């Protein structure tokens, strides 16, 4: 009998089985359940609909304000206040409200709510991010989340696993985002990675810091995958030290585990990549779009709003000023990231360079507020989606790239290659 992949092992472990097969449906114990501001009230309402008035574990239900802060309308503001009352009523231990807020997925990892070998779910699609620390992270519906809040369990279809073995050396200014985009171009959006577990392995992955790993796992949902995962290693250990809210142990795929497919990628050959407007998988090397004019740049989101991303931006913009035709918006991924960036001097550097820095939140990525696109806007974004209308107007164009490309381009006023910075 062959071995199991890390995702299969976690699924077996959490559903009390010796082994699981891809395609099988299992009920697994969830480590944490996350819900955010705009679905929070609904999720609690669904919980009450089950006749349950106490969550399964008040330390493991995590509530975060991220999509609607600071509130853009009285209706949202009122809904948030009602939600706050519910969170209080349920004595939720970890409530990341305005003041401690951040993008939910950033909070879940940064505050140690997800640990290796566990399953965590959230009511937002980018819960895949948790794979960065060797956990299975999954997005679920409001009723799934309510059920999990009630009984601590959720059903899962055990996914087939696909491995990306990544070797080689990262070129300067090439980031995990470029690898993500490269895979997007290679495999296509909603292509043959639908419902799969994507496992990233190899020396070029080991070389990635936690921020890069989060970017990589984050975007697996945009490939249509069920989850993305990187087995815990020394980087994970160091990151979780003093951060993890619970004990955890190392876990890895068996050497004889079965994969539906294994792809090898040499990162040495990957340069900065850009996804062209409207189609996530219309990905090209930067050479193809160099010189394209744009008027807005955005760095933030659960994909690329971390300290390391801000550091790259600050490094490139240090002592310089953004191009006068470009408005650059930075939205740190969390209040903690903001504070860390402040202490590191990045905020000073960036404000001096002409960057607008706004409240940690999902901001315009979700098209709800804080930087919504207008007609004819051409946006270069370090976010994760570029479908028509994603950031507002259907007549706006969104290019996706790494923060390094955004920074280099912001200086030039046209899409530019960061490797060519003198």
């Amino acid at each position, binding site marked *: 009998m062959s071995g199991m992949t890390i995702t299969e092992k976690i699924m077996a472990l959490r559903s009390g089985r010796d082994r699981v097969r891809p395609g099988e449906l299992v009920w697994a114990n969830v480590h944490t359940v996350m819900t955010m501001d705009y679905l929070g009230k609904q999720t609690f309402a669904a919980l009450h609909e089950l006749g349950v008035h106490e969550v399964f574990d008040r330390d493991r239900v995590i509530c975060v304000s991220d999509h609607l802060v600071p509130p853009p309308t009285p209706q949202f503001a009122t809904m948030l206040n009602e939600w706050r009352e519910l969170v209080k009523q349920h004595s939720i231990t970890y409530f990341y409200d305005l003041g401690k807020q951040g993008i939910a997925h950033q909070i879940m990892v940064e505050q140690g709510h997800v640990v290796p070998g566990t399953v965590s779910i959230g009511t937002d699609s980018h819960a895949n991010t948790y794979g960065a620390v060797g956990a299975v992270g999954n997005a679920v519906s409001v009723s799934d989340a309510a059920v999990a809040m009630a009984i601590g369990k959720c059903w899962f*279809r055990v996914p087939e696993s696909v491995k990306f073995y990544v070797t080689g050396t990262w070129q300067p200014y090439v980031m995990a985002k470029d690898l993500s985009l490269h895979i997007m171009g290679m495999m296509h959006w909603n292509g043959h990675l639908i*419902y799969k577990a994507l496992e990233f392995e190899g020396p070029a992955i080991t070389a990635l810091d936690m921020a890069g790993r989060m970017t990589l796992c984050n975007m697996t949902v945009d490939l249509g995958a069920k989850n993305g995962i990187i087995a815990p290693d020394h980087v994970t250990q160091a990151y979780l030290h003093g951060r993890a809210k619970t004990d955890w142990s190392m876990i890895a795929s068996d050497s004889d585990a079965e994969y539906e497919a294994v792809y090898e990628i040499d990162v040495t050959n990957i340069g900065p990549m850009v996804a062209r407007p409207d189609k996530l998988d219309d990905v090209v090397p930067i050479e193809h779009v160099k010189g394209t004019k744009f008027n807005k740049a955005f760095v933030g989101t659960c994909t690329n709003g971390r300290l390391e991303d801000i550091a790259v931006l600050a490094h490139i913009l240090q002592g310089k000023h953004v191009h006068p035709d470009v408005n650059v918006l930075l939205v740190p991924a969390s209040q903690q990231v903001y504070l860390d960036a402040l202490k590191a001097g990045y905020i000073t550097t960036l404000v001096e360079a002409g960057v607008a820095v706004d409240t940690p939140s999902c901001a315009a990525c979700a098209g709800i507020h804080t930087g919504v696109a207008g007609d004819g806007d051409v946006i270069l974004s370090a976010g994760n989606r570029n479908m028509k209308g994603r950031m507002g107007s259907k007549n706006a164009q969104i290019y996706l790239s790494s923060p390094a490309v955004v920074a280099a381009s912001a200086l030039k006023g046209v899409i530019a290659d960061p490797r060519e910075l003198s």
Partner: protein
Amino acid sequence: MIQPLRGIAWASEKYVYAFDIIVQRFWTSPIDPVENAKWVMAGVDEEFNKENGFRDKGYTFIVAGHNFAGGGKSIEHVVTGLMGAGIKAVFADSFSRLQFRNATNYGLPFITCKGLVQHVKTGDELEFDPSTGLIKNITTGFEAQALPVAPFVAEIAAAGGLMQFIKNKIADGTVHELR
């Protein structure tokens, strides 16, 4: 014991998007299998683009190719509409994750069976045994083996959905047995 299902299949290898199964003007209508069934599949094929156009064909199974009900829409009307039109199981090479969860949460089996679509034509009669996962094409004699359907999916269907299913489990004290 779950009885084998028998009925006529609608089969197509082409991409079947969620937003074609339920076209945009019906997204906001309430979740109601009878209502949702009236125009289900209207965007998939011109012959279904009339009231009860798909339902009146009397299909029991759908056999599809890659990424059934994909396209990023999570609307639950897709599943309730198919169920309301009499669909008892959907076979495909792969499914949209969002709609897979919706289907299971309403108790409609979505069964991954690679390549089945190459062996089934619209109008073929199929038999499917959820407890073994065996699929027989009565018309052609072709057989395929899928994974058995987890028994809880039928229980969810019987309860009328995930929420009631869990309520029942809580009430009879068996919720901890879920695994």
